[in-house]
């Protein structure tokens, strides 16, 4: 891989500010680029706004009226600002997948969980859905473990398997960007490792943004790292640089554990 060639930008946050419905400003002038087909990690102490920023990208905040975005998030290749007033958040969410902190499969069968994204898009042909479900489960490294019991309840899976199911569910619709909100904080170390391996495999197909409270995970998994503090983006760069030669003192203090 030629590391000096410029990387295509999948999405860019430009001067992004965000206000919760009670008026509190959670994000201040964020300028951040997500490189296409790479993993970008967001790290920072609790309450710094990393999850808030993540949820701006698929406009999850729109579910809770009263909050306000300022600035732009431009997605390529169309170059449209997904925060624009004439953009339907449902459209945005159709192109972007999200995996949450605690695995949240639907109380349905494994098959129906993965198929739901397709059903929402009006896909009806059984054969097509079967194919996509199988492909998604394979991409999530879960197919081998569940192919004999696709129609049993998702709740019977272990925590790590449930999280991989949630990943498969998000992948089934071929999203352009995958958002991971602390995906392994509720899992044991073995399950965590399998998810991290999976993320490494997935990045060739999708652009990934992962929020993690675990610095070491960010160092293991990501190509680029952004450090946030109190709603501001303090530093952003290649992961190796951030962790070995950070340019900001606050970044260095956080990395070396002087505060957390």
């Amino acid at each position, binding site marked *: 891989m030629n590391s000096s060639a410029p990387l295509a930008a999948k999405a860019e946050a430009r001067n992004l500010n965000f206000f919760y419905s009670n008026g509190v400003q959670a994000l201040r002038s964020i300028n951040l680029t997500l490189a296409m087909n790479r993993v970008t990690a967001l790290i920072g102490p609790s309450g710094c706004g990393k999850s808030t920023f993540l949820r701006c990208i698929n406009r999850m905040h729109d579910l809770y009226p009263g909050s306000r975005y300022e600035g732009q998030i431009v997605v390529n290749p169309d170059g449209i600002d997904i925060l624009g007033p004439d953009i339907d958040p449902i459209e945005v969410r159709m192109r972007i997948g*999200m995996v949450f902190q605690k695995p949240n499969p*639907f109380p349905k069968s494994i098959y129906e969980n993965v198929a739901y994204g397709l059903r929402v898009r009006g896909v009806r042909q059984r054969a097509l859905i079967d194919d996509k479900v199988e492909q998604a489960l394979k991409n999530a490294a879960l197919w081998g473990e569940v192919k004999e019991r696709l129609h049993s309840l998702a709740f019977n899976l272990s925590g790590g398997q449930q999280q991989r199911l949630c990943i498969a569910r998000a992948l089934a619709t071929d999203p352009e960007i995958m958002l991971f909100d602390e995906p392994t904080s509720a899992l044991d170390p073995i399950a965590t490792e399998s998810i991290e391996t999976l993320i490494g495999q997935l990045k060739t197909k999708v652009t990934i943004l992962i929020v993690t409270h675990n610095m070491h995970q960010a160092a293991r998994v990501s190509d680029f790292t952004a450090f946030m503090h109190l709603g501001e983006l303090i530093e952003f760069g290649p992961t190796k640089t951030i962790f070995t030669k950070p340019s900001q003192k606050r970044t260095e203090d956080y990395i070396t554990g002087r505060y957390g």
Partner: protein
Amino acid sequence: MATDDIQAVRSMIAAHKRRDHVFALVALCAMLFGVLVLLALILAMVADGYQRITYDFFTSFPSRHPDRSGILSAWIGSLLVITVAILVAVPVGVAAGVYLEVYARRNWLMDIIEINITNLAGVPPIIYGLLALGLFVHLWGLGESILTAGLTLALMILPVVIMNTREAIRSIPQAIHEAAYALGATKGQTARDHLLPYSKGGILTGVIIGTATAIGETAPLITIGALTFIAFLPPAPVTEIFPFVSFDWLFDPFTVMPLQMFSWVSRPQPAFHEVAAAAGVVLMFITLAMNALAIWLRYRYRKRIRW
């Protein structure tokens, strides 16, 4: 010195425990009082009426002779009226509950609506009867019929169904809502594919409890003209000629179980009081059975869906 302190602490703890025991005893007596009074009433009623509960009792019309009186028209009337009530109240109530929980914006107007719906559940039933008399019987001209009675009881069940639907939807964890929306679902798709299916248990429980209460309602149905001596049944809903379905039964006069009981109790002959007690036993049994069904269904749904 230390041993003195230990003694003081020990006796303090002992005093607190004695107080706890006294309170537990008082609470137990209060509970037993309620249960025993109810049990005594039920047993008295059963003792009065059990001899009258025969097959003929369920298949005979009321009559001048207490020996030949039965509850046929009463229980069929109750059944038909409740069926109409459920068919109206459930779709409207569930839809209203979904709207309020999923679509409505949270502003002062919605707060007022929510308060009003909660209040409706506490309005005295006779008021519903007066409303029904003015609106259904006279203004809409539906007459003193099963349809009117069904609509009146539907109004009474409605607030319970709405509140239970809202509670059931609210008890679905936010993570599930967000998972559906994150996949690009609209509010309607989320409600149809997830919120309603997972709330079935709660909604069903609300419907059954509302129905169990409505079965015993007397005041509003007297107001809209339920009769106390009906010696015939409404025409059957299926007919032999095209179109094979008839809605004439909706417009027939009718009676219901509690009303029949009331009518018998008001007669001077003690034999009729026995018949009334028998009807009361049947009514009580139906109510308890429905509540038990609601509890069992709620238990089964809770087992299947574990958040």
